[in-house]
Each structure stands twice: as C-alpha cells, then as structure tokens.
C-alpha cells in the first residue's frame, strides 16, 4: 500500500462538463436571474472578523458568499538585511491560494499578479512614514474562491492592518463589477466571472472618497464605464460602513 512517491500519476476530476454561457446576453433578455438570486446591483452579505490568527500582529477573516479569505499582518519588523536603507517604511504583500480553494485543483497559481495588485491597492492608504527602516508584511490566504477574490482580499487586508495598529489614512474597500453583454452585475460569483465580457475592480478609501486603484479589463461600452464606477463607489461606501462596524465591535469586545 502507501502513496507512490516516485511517480506523480496524472489525475483528472470527474466533474461534469463546463456550463455553457446562457444565450440571454446576446439577446438582452432581462428575465435572467443570477445563480444565487441576487439583484444585479446587490452585493453579497459580508462577514468580517478581526483577530483570527493569534500569532500575527493583526489579522482578519472575511467571508462573502463562498469567497473565504484570511489575512495576517506582521510588523512593523526588521527589513531584510539585503534591503537598502529607507526613510519610509516598506510594504510587502503576498497572496496565495489553497489547493482546494478553486474548483479545479491547483488553479490558484493562475493568480500570481494578485500580490502586486494588493500592494498597489494598499500603499496609497498606509502612512509609510510612520515606520521608517522597517517592513510591514501582509500575507493573504484564499481558503475558498467563490468569485471577486481580489476585492475581498483587499478589504480584508485593510481590516487586518487596522487590527495590527498600522497607521492608515482610511480603510480601503474594494468592489468589482462584471459587464455581461449590456448588463452590469456587481460582485460577480465565479460562474459569472467565467462568462463576463469585461470587469472593473475599484478600490477606494470611502471616507475620503479617493480611489487607490482602478482596474478595467475586457470590452466596455463607453456610457457603462461611468455607471460602473458610480456603482462601485456606492458599494464601497456601504462596505466601508460594514468594516467600520466590525472594528468597533472588536474594540468594544476587547474592552469588556
């Protein structure tokens, strides 16, 4: 018995075939209902909890639908000896997936760019001058991918930074919108992302009404661009309120 360590047998998953794209997007049929029954402009209910990991300086767990993410923040701690002296602090981000987080095993390594996108989303909001010569490490692990992974990672990361006491100008909330034919669908799930024509991810600081990162992909009709951005900003506002409530509850719970 025992696993055969030498040979790595090729395996396949006995899943049913790929779902075909619903034809409605070619005919602009508005009778289509989203697979989870949400309205087109309705986000998934968000669940946030700080203090998920005891070993970290700060941490947060976020769950939106099936997307589950844990982010740990370590620092400010010593920069690597090879790094040059820096008057301002450094931010180091890393996003990784569990092997079972994606429907097909091992697909998480398709998202190597998420680490650098997370870095760009957060660096505008953190007061790097408050921790010179040191590094703050932000590590994210996506436990389960259910769509809109990067926006959830970014929001969770900013909560973890707040939990760690890193000084920031404001919380960072992120939301994405998918363009499906003529329809704009907010906070898409994995299935909707697989047949989207274009996507927009917007990361902003809600109280300051400032955008830290904006990413457009795919095909976008021009009037929809403005509408999509406005949708995202409104959703980020609401998400920011939910995140603030989470922090307040955590703070009052620790005071008791």
């Amino acid at each position, binding site marked *: *018995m*025992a*696993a*055969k360590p030498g*040979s790595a*047998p*090729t*395996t*396949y*998953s*006995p*899943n*049913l075939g790929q779902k075909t794209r619903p034809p409605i997007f070619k005919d602009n049929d508005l009778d289509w209902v989203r697979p989870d029954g949400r309205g087109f402009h309705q986000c998934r209910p968000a669940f946030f909890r700080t203090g*998920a*990991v*005891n*070993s*970290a300086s700060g*941490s947060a767990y976020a769950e939106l639908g*099936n997307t589950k993410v*844990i*982010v*740990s923040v*370590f620092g400010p*701690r010593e920069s690597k000896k090879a790094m040059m002296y820096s008057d301002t602090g450094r931010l180091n981000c*890393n996003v*990784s997936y*569990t*092997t*079972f*987080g*994606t*429907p097909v*095993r091992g697909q998480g390594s398709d998202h190597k760019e998420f680490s650098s996108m997370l870095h760009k989303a957060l660096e505008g909001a953190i007061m790097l001058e408050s921790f010179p010569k040191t590094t703050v*490490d932000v*590590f*994210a*692990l996506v*436990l*389960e991918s259910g769509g809109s992974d990067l926006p959830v990672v970014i929001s969770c990361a900013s909560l973890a930074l707040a939990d760690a006491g890193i000084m920031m100008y404001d919380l960072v909330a992120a939301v994405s919108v998918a363009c499906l034919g003529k329809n704009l669908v907010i906070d898409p799930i994995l299935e909707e992302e697989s047949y989207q024509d274009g996507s927009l991810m917007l990361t902003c600081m809600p109280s300051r009404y400032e955008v830290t990162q904006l990413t457009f992909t795919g095909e976008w009709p021009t009037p929809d661009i403005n509408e999509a951005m406005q949708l995202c900003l409104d959703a980020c506002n609401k998400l920011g309120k939910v995140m603030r409530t989470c922090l307040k509850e955590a703070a009052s719970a620790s005071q008791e």
Partner: protein
Amino acid sequence: MGLPNASADLSTEVEVDAFRRLFPLRFFEKHLLESIRPDARPLGRARDTTIALGAVASANGSALAKIGSTTMLAAIKMEVMTPSMETPDEGCIAIDFHMPPICSPIVRPGRPAEAAPVVAKQLSDTILSSGMINLKELSLVSGKAAWMAYLDIYCLDADGALYDAALLAAVAAFSHLEIPVVSLNDDGKIVLSEEQGLSDNDPVNKEKRKVNLGSIPFSLTCILHKNYILADPTAEEESIMETSVTVVLDTSSQLISLYKPGGAVLAYTSAIQDCIALTRPRVKELQKILEEAVSGMEVD
C-alpha cells in the same frame, strides 16, 4: 497571564513581560516548581480542542481542528487516476502539509518553515501505516480507474503541537469524506452521475458513501525538561524546551508511532512510559470530541 500580581501596577506588569522575554527558561521554571504553566494549565493537561466538520464546501471532505490557538484546516479532494500495475484494485492517498505565511512570523513566502516537511512526512507515515483507510475501498474499476484522494492540510495559526492538530484535522476530514457517485461514460472516462437510471454501469454504490475507517490514530506531543513532562506545548514552550516526544495511539490503545527527534534531554524508559500514560486519556478525550462532531453533522 503571568505571575499573579497583588497590585495592578503597570510598572510591575512590564517587568513580568520583560522577564518573560529576557529569561524565558527561568520564567518557566518558576512556574514548573508550582506544577503549573503560565496559561494556568496543570502539566499533564492539553489545551481546549474543537473540531468543525465541513469547513470547505467545495471539497469532498473537510475539517477545521483547533488545539488552543493552533488551527489546522484539512480538505480532501477526490480525483480519478489509473492504478498501477502492481496494485490494480487499490486507490491512492496523497498527503501534503502546508504552512502558509499567515500562520506564523517565522514563515516567509519563498522561505518555507523547517517544520513543514517534517510534519508532512510524519503525517504521511502515520496515516498510511495506521490502517485507517483501506486503499481497496478507493478502487473504481479494477485495473482502469481508482480514486486518488488529495489530502491537503493548511496551518492557519501555529502555536505549538502542530503534528497533533494536523493529525486530528486529517482524521476528522476523513470521517467527513463522502465519495461522490460516478459512472463510466462511453469514452471510458469517469464522470459524476447526477440522475439515477443512467445507462452506463455504476462501479460504485448508488448513493454517496462514507469511507469505512479502521483504527483511528490520535496523538499527543509532550516536551521533556529535566524531570518534568509537559503535555501539549505552546510555541513559546517548544522554542525554549526543545526535547519533544510524540506518541500516537489508536482507539484500542495500540501504539502506532513513537517519535522522539533528538533533543538535549535523554528519555529513559520511565519517561516514555509516562508520556504514553498521558496519551491514553487524551485519546479517549479526542475520540469523544470527534464522535460529537460527526454526530452533530448527521443531525443536520
């Protein structure tokens, strides 16, 4: 936490924390003289343990195990493979243990923890040799298709006793595992079958079935320091007192594995027997926790 203080004086509290950081061994020995540990546990007691099954919806079986702060998430995904020529009616289990950077300040991306491959190998050896899973149950079509069970265990929070928590999570994931119903389609590939009454032959039973578990292994790690034996160490205790002994027993109290990787303290037979004696009640305790978690799921 820390030494009891009559006055809530901030300067005295800071001294205690500083003393703990500067002279960790003396700090712990002061506690051991009173037969207690800084988190108020007696020497032989393990931390609070919880198991939650079905943590990952997209996996065939999953479990989240917590021993104190140490948190492990185990998930099993089943894929189909061709069995080897020597064992045409046996499936395969691939066990992998990961310590992602979130779990501990000593792990960096690109610099994996030293402990990770050690625990991975230990887990692999224990699970495959304990006889918990009969690989013949994982067979589909003899000689042509068999299940490959990928068991991945992620450490979400590393606070000592990693092997114990990982083994518990793995065992719990196996008890939650449901093998999906599949059938052979015309191209000779195995596909998920949804409706009953398919014209293809069903090599597996008609409904999702659970794996029959043989003797289930449970473990306890103890650290040895001079004449003291401390059960279930935290990360802080492990870093100060480095000699550890891990005992794995199954539910009928048979010894499955004994692991003592070096260390400054030499363990005489009496110390080993004391460790085994500490493990026996712990096995009963863990078995009860696992059974409660499993029956809790079945009520749903």
